[in-house]
């Protein structure tokens, strides 16, 4: 089955007959079966489905942290399934911004240093890095928390630091794995508002995995997966 954005512009993400299976003992366990999906530039997709439906696996494949068993996965025209591990790491550094459910911040680094982390892989000078980190932290409303360590921040603030870390390199796509899953209602609302703002005002393409129907409402489009298959697409 397939779902397409239905736009004339070339899609940012083109997934064709994507298959992913794991080997357990002698058996192949299929996780994703014949997935075809297009995501337009500037889109905001919510990948939904029950546990074990393969939505996180699909997100991991799009983010280039896992490799498919078969099929084609083009991001901005580049087939990332053909990249080596090293090339994929470089590609992720410049194209993907990650937002995880549990924030995945470095506990020994303060907010500023955590946001600066991906910039160490660029050629920016220290002054340029500082400028960019300060700007990004102000965008997420944490200018006054730059010196704070993750354990000194609330869950919502930590997720905002993670969002700042994800966007500081100006990536092509933001991948969010249950970004509100560990947050209280108010923090979740704030984070979703921020993601919507990033999408609408800064044109960021966002692909978000979520169980939460309320969170999914923030997206422009919902895609449902069940037992490794795409069951519908909603514009």
């Amino acid at each position, binding site marked *: 089955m397939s779902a397409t954005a239905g736009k004339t512009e070339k899609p940012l993400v083109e997934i064709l007959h994507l298959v992913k299976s794991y080997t357990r003992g002698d058996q192949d366990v299929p996780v994703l079966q014949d997935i075809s999906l297009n995501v337009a530039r500037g889109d905001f997709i919510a990948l939904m489905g029950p546990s074990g439906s393969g939505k996180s696996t699909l997100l991991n494949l799009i983010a280039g942290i896992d490799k498919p068993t078969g099929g084609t996965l083009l991001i901005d025209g580049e087939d990332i399934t053909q990249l080596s591990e090293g090339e994929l*790491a470089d590609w992720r550094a410049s194209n993907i911004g*990650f937002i995880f459910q549990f924030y995945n911040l*470095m506990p020994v*680094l303060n907010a500023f240093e955590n946001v600066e982390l991906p910039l160490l*892989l660029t050629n920016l000078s220290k002054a340029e890095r500082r400028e960019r980190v300060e700007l990004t932290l102000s965008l997420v409303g944490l200018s006054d928390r730059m010196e704070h360590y993750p354990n000194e921040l609330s869950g919502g603030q930590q997720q905002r630091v993670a969002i700042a870390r994800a966007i500081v390199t100006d990536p092509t796509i933001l991948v969010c794995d249950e970004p509100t899953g560990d947050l209280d209602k108010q923090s979740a609302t704030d984070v979703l508002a921020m993601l919507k703002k990033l999408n609408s005002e800064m044109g960021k393409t966002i692909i978000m995995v979520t169980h939460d129907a309320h969170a999914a409402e923030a997206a422009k489009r919902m895609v449902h997966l069940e037992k490794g298959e795409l069951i519908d697409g909603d514009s």
Partner: protein
Amino acid sequence: MYFLKLVFKNIFRAKLRTALTMIGLVIAIVAFGLLQTVVDAWYAGSNGASASRMVTRNAISLVFSMPIYYRERIKTVDGVKAVSISNWFGGIYKEPQNFFAQFAVDHENFFDLYPEFLIPPEQLLAFKRDRQGAMVGRKLADQYGWKIGDTIPIRGTIYPGTWQFTVRGIYDGKDDTTVVRQFYFHYDYLNEEMKRKSPRRADQVGIFIVDASDASRTADISRGVDAEFKNSLAETLTETEKAFQLGFVAQSESIVVAIRIVSFVVIIIIMAVVANTMAMTARERLSEYATLKALGFSPAFVAALIFGEALMMCSIGVGIGILLTFPIAAGFANSPAGVAFAAFKVSQTTILLQLGCALVVGVVASLVPSVRSANVKIVDGLRHIG
């Protein structure tokens, strides 16, 4: 800079675990340093031996003596510049645990053969003039608080009776390898008493010290001296002073080997401790390493983080350990057990070995965790709960 900051901050995340590992490291490095210094001290005497000095002893064993008249015949051997005599006394000063070596020597020329003993001329003269005079090493004098003019009673174990000596000189060493914990007195004093009390034991000498005119000819001279007494009542064995000293060390070689082995076992144990710490650390931070890799950092960066952490922890531990080795070694040197050694000083080689151990421990201990973490699949690592 950022990398080092990250490594340094990571070290002190689990403070108690890091502290315990570091304490273990410090103890291991100090123990290693002290054991290596004991081994060095064992060989210190031979290291300070002169290249031109040789020792002639009874070929059967050092326990057996030789007639004193051998001296005149040794003098005639080609290449011999001077000959002196030395005889083990083996007495006890007050209590048996007050051990130090005492030698009856030829007061006229013995110290001419030992230029490394620094003696004020007037004290040497006073020693030569007093038949009961004694020349003592600085360390020995300091240990027992002896001063010039003090009377020292020593109870003989090989030569019966209580022998009275007067300290006439205190010698210093030219450098750290010179033994300054010995007690020398006139052979004539011993020999004359023996002539009176036990004539059969008189005119006997333990060893002859032979000074070669040319250090490169010692092999020829030793053959010449031993040939002189071939088939005699007491055949001789002549060897360089260094070989003679090493012969002593060889008698306790197994102890030295055991000490060496123990010193390296200590390092292997601490290596296991540090490896355990690093394995726990890497396992706990698997999701962080996966996050770093997801952000685009290479597996080499992740491996370097773990290597760096192990090396920095070892460097801090070893640094403290080395700094502590010096005062502890000095304390040991002045203790009753330590004074038995001629020289007990931490050598440069020992420090280099300690540093080498830190490097080896750091690298080996972090090898498996770093390779594992570097190769962890990102999706598996992100699922991991530390």
